[in-house]
């Protein structure tokens, strides 16, 4: 096997768990709400006492993926699993709180414990710690186009033998920075839907083509219509929708961000 394949995709959104929870039309179902929140996963253990909501969502998405694909934690643990994390703005909440605390000069936001969590790499770091992932990583910041780049990176790592499986994880939260997103409303769609999604890529027979299409794929459009604006989570939701349709092999996903659209096609 010199190619790759998508083994499974987990989807957690503000609409619920899985693509079946997505409404037929997110804009209509939002009924004027700007943000559809995902809440804070109730994860057991003092281990997560310091972690931000974004970290917990990442852990929850990977956990959901492992359950859905009946992959044990033992299998993914170690240096043969790559972790690619993509986000357009999940670092926003922690960064926003940090700046606000500085302005207020209050000790209410715990400084030492808070600051590391302003780094996007700590979000994926908490996932790596939780699942014992010690292989290659990628951390890409951007919207849906960055996810396509991340998926492509994952296929490169698999094809070159740098890993035996790859997790491509995207997390987006908007609630804490809703006001900032409102100011940049031309950049993002509505409603903003919080999401945490993860794809498992493994060696397979399919090759991938990575390019720059002009138009969105049908799956990209469907994902946006049904899920809403999920920034980096979009292409993985699209992947899940395609698989739900019964696509078992050839599948293509596209994603656009700030004027650039990228596409990845398994064939």
């Amino acid at each position, binding site marked *: 096997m010199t190619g790759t394949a998508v083994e499974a995709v987990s989807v957690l959104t503000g609409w619920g768990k899985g693509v079946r929870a997505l409404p037929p039309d997110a804009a209509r179902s939002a009924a004027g709400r700007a943000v559809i929140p995902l809440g804070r996963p109730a994860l057991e253990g*003092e281990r997560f*006492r*310091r972690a931000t909501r974004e970290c917990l969502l990442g852990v929850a998405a990977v956990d959901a993926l492992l359950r859905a694909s009946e992959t044990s934690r033992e299998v993914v643990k170690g240096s043969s699993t790559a972790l690619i994390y993509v986000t357009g703005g999940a670092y926003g909440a922690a960064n926003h709180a940090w700046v606000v605390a500085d302005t207020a000069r209050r*000790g209410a936001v*715990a*400084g*030492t*414990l808070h600051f*590391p969590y302003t780094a996007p790499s700590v979000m994926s770091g908490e996932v790596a710690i939780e699942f014992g992932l010690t292989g290659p990583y990628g951390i890409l910041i951007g919207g849906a186009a960055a996810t396509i780049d991340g998926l492509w990176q994952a296929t490169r790592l698999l094809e070159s033998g740098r890993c035996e499986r790859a997790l491509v994880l995207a997390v987006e939260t908007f609630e804490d920075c809703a006001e900032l997103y409102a100011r940049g409303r031309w950049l993002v769609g509505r409603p903003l839907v919080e999401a945490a999604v993860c794809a498992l890529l493994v060696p397979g027979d399919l090759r991938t083509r990575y390019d720059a299409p002009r138009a969105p794929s049908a799956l990209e459009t469907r994902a946006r219509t049904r899920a809403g604006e999920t920034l980096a989570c979009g292409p993985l939701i699209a992947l899940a929708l395609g698989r739900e349709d019964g696509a078992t092999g050839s599948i293509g996903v596209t994603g656009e961000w700030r004027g650039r659209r990228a596409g990845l096609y398994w064939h």
Partner: protein
Amino acid sequence: MEPKEVFDELKTILVTRLKFDPRRAVDLTPETTLPKGIESSIGLDSLDFIELSIAIEERFGIAMDESADLAPHFASFDTLSRFIASRTAGA
């Protein structure tokens, strides 16, 4: 301040600054050990200890000498309470 009063303040810090669940704080005793890796300890790591030191400085008005080896004082709530109590005694 008496060590017992200090201990109560430390439990508050554990919740407000170190993000422990308040129900957990109720179970703590002065004998509870602090550093991660020791059995039955509350499991604080290096990051927690920095935050705790800063919180202690702010709450009790004492200065931690960074060049000194303070690890023995941070072994348990009892050692820490006594350390803080002795530092506030002269203040």
